[in-house]
């Protein structure tokens, strides 16, 4: 039976170690505060929080998909596509803004459902399915818009990026989504079933739960959150582009895994992902602060450094499980 795979895997299961990542984050924060000039300026700290928002939101969806034993590589293309839809169709009237927001959220959910339904009927590995659907969404995005551009009304940008000191609308939005989905995962039946799906689908089926429905729902959540992220990015950059989302597939997986989510599913938490996204965002900010943003060459170095730091931090507290 299928469970043979588990006998080996079971040995590696450990309790969720969310505490470790927050501790690590705190330690890095202290080190960075001491060593990097200007890092602790309130304006910069508020900036760090805002910078993490798009990654944080996508990573919530990615974590939920991964907890269910899946993976979503199409998030980047979905985000890009949404920025293009928003920047193409949004007009100045309130009605048009709300209409486009609703359209984007529906479209994102639809993309997620598409992934989930393909998975159900073709039973192909989610890595392949979402890689392919990612190409599909990316292609659609390019066909609508070859260059960066479009129009975003300034009122939409102003509302979506407003901030007052430490408090900002984007971070507030993230926090709200985090709390809602954290509750969903931790306290409700649906949340339990996502974990059970990632742990052992057979067990879930045998108690009479339709596991396909649960899986499709996780992808719909991921698609919906991609749409939110896409709208935010479109608002912040006042444009749409088929490139805007490219980094997010791998970064969201990194944030989830650094935060303790198992690639095999069933283990992890949103709180860990929160810390993971924060970590990535903090490194990004620090590297920008110490001068990695001024020319193209050093931008590449920045990626190299972030890559190394991610691997090291994963090794640091995940070595037992791997």
């Amino acid at each position, binding site marked *: 039976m299928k469970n*043979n795979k588990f006998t080996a895997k079971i040995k590696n299961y450990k309790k969720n170690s969310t505490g470790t990542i927050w501790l690590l984050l705190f330690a890095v924060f202290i080190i960075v505060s001491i060593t990097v000039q200007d890092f602790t300026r309130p304006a910069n700290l508020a900036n760090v929080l805002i910078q993490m928002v798009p990654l944080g939101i996508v990573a919530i969806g990615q974590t939920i998909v991964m907890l269910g034993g899946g993976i979503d590589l199409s998030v980047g293309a979905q985000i890009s596509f949404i920025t293009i839809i928003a920047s193409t169709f949004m007009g100045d009237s309130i009605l048009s803004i709300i209409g486009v927001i609703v359209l984007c959220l529906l479209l994102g959910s639809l993309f997620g459902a598409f992934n989930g339904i393909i998975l159900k009927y073709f039973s192909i590995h989610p890595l392949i399915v979402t890689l392919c659907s990612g190409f599909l969404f990316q292609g659609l995005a390019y066909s609508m818009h070859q260059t960066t551009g479009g129009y975003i009304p300034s009122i939409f940008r102003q509302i979506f990026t407003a901030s007052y000191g430490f408090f900002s609308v984007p971070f507030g939005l993230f926090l709200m989504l985090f709390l809602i989905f954290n509750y969903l995962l931790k306290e409700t*039946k649906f949340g339990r079933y996502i974990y*059970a799906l990632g*742990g052992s689908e057979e067990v879930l089926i045998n108690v009479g739960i339709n596991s396909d429905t649960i899986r499709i729902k996780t992808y719909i959540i991921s698609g919906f959150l991609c749409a939110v992220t896409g709208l935010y990015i479109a608002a912040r950059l006042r444009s749409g582009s088929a490139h805007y989302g490219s980094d997010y597939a791998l970064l969201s997986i990194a944030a989830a895994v650094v935060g303790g989510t198992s690639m095999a599913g069933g283990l992890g938490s949103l709180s860990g992902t929160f810390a993971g996204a924060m970590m990535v965002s903090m490194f990004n900010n620090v590297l920008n602060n110490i001068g990695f943003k001024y020319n193209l060459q050093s931008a590449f170095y920045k990626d190299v450094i972030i890559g190394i730091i991610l691997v090291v931090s994963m090794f640091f507290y995940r070595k037992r499980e791997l």
Partner: protein
Amino acid sequence: MFLELKNITKKFLSITALNNVSISFKKGEVHAIVGENGAGKSTLIKIIAGIYNADNGVIVLDGKEVKIPSPFSASKLGINVVCQEYNLAPNLTVLDNIILGKEPVGKFGRIEKNIARERLEEIINKYALHIDLNKFAADLSAAEAKIAEILKAYISKLEILILDEPTAALTEDDVVSLFRLISILKSRGITIIYISHRLDEVFQICDRVSVLKDGNYIDTFKVSDIDHDSLVKLMVGRELKKLFPASNVEKINQKDFVLSLKNLTDSKNFYDVSFDLHEGEIFGIGGMAGQGQREFIRSLFGAQLLTGGEITFKNNKLAINNPKQAVKNSFAFLSDDRRNEGLALTQSILRNISYPSQDKRANYGVIDKQKDKAVVSKYIQDLSIKITSLYQNVQGLSGGNQQRIVIAKWLLVSPQIMLFHEPTLGIDVGAKQDIYKLLRLFAEQGISIIMVTSDMLELLHMSDRICVFYEGRIQAIISNKEATEEKIMKAASGKSINEK
């Protein structure tokens, strides 16, 4: 009759797994189903549990004909199965596993865990069960996992509980508490269908026993009306005494020592293990579970590290730090975890047998396929392994055939010391006999064998000398002539074998 199976037939392609089988179960009885592997026990219970659908025949439950298309529909009818395989989500706590699919829900969709917990704790306290609801299922011992699964069945509708080899991985103490739980369930009118290789258990806790052989129903007996040997005879058509081939102990004792162990220890699980091994001797190691035998035999093969002691092999001191060195010194090791450590399950028979010795048949790293095939085929014939093709996957083979494939793979490296850990774990009675014959044959050819086993009969009848571990040390070494079950049990519980 509470549950009746009538004329059940099930075919897999051209093979008939069950042929017109009819069995009836009474309410509140413990009913054993015995038979060799391949006799159809597993197929039968999988049909009752809704995992397979019968091609023919009907199931009558409580006077009504029922259809059981899936495990979920079975559990709705009150039929629950506790398989050999782990059937809990490893990443959820025991509590979450038990209430999975039946969570009580309060305001805002919040699961009311406390209500469920209180209810479960009541049951746990009432029956004095040993289980921690907060543990992750992955951290459970085999016994706790069984209890959790039975509890999971218990809190839903439970009329019929099917236990498939429940004691396979349990220690003696755990078996006792499992049996206690079974009798509690029985007293509450729950029908238990019990599958086990261990016939003494059948006599210990079952009311009736049905025998299956080659997919056919043979008969049903009250356990008080039949004895152990006649039951085995019905299952396999052989008597128990013929199960174990005889050995010539005097002749073995005259032979030279090939391996000498002095004060071996890993500083954690076993200490001061010293003995000498004759050429062609079978040296059996027994004792309760977890007394260091497992770690000891694994360390001898370098699968775990030794921290002290001396190994002398044919007058040379050996350092064995990893399996590669062990193989180089012509040691072979057959793990108790055959499916993970003995075989590459998704690979062909040919490759599995060829792996450890394939360098011998390679020129500049390229394997001579003709030669490889010829050599492997020869050993498959010698060991009479039943296969349809060399390229067949090993995954689907029976336990006995799988074990013979592991043996064949090691024979190709011409071992002088063979280390067997649970040589017949998960192997049916008929195939066991063949494995025993092979062990004796190897010993006669001059291979020395160290065998760690938890099977008392095997230990008693196959070993030329019997060594009993207790708390990581050798408690006694008993010669084949003097050994009795009583002496072994005494040593295993830490007493002197001559103590009255």
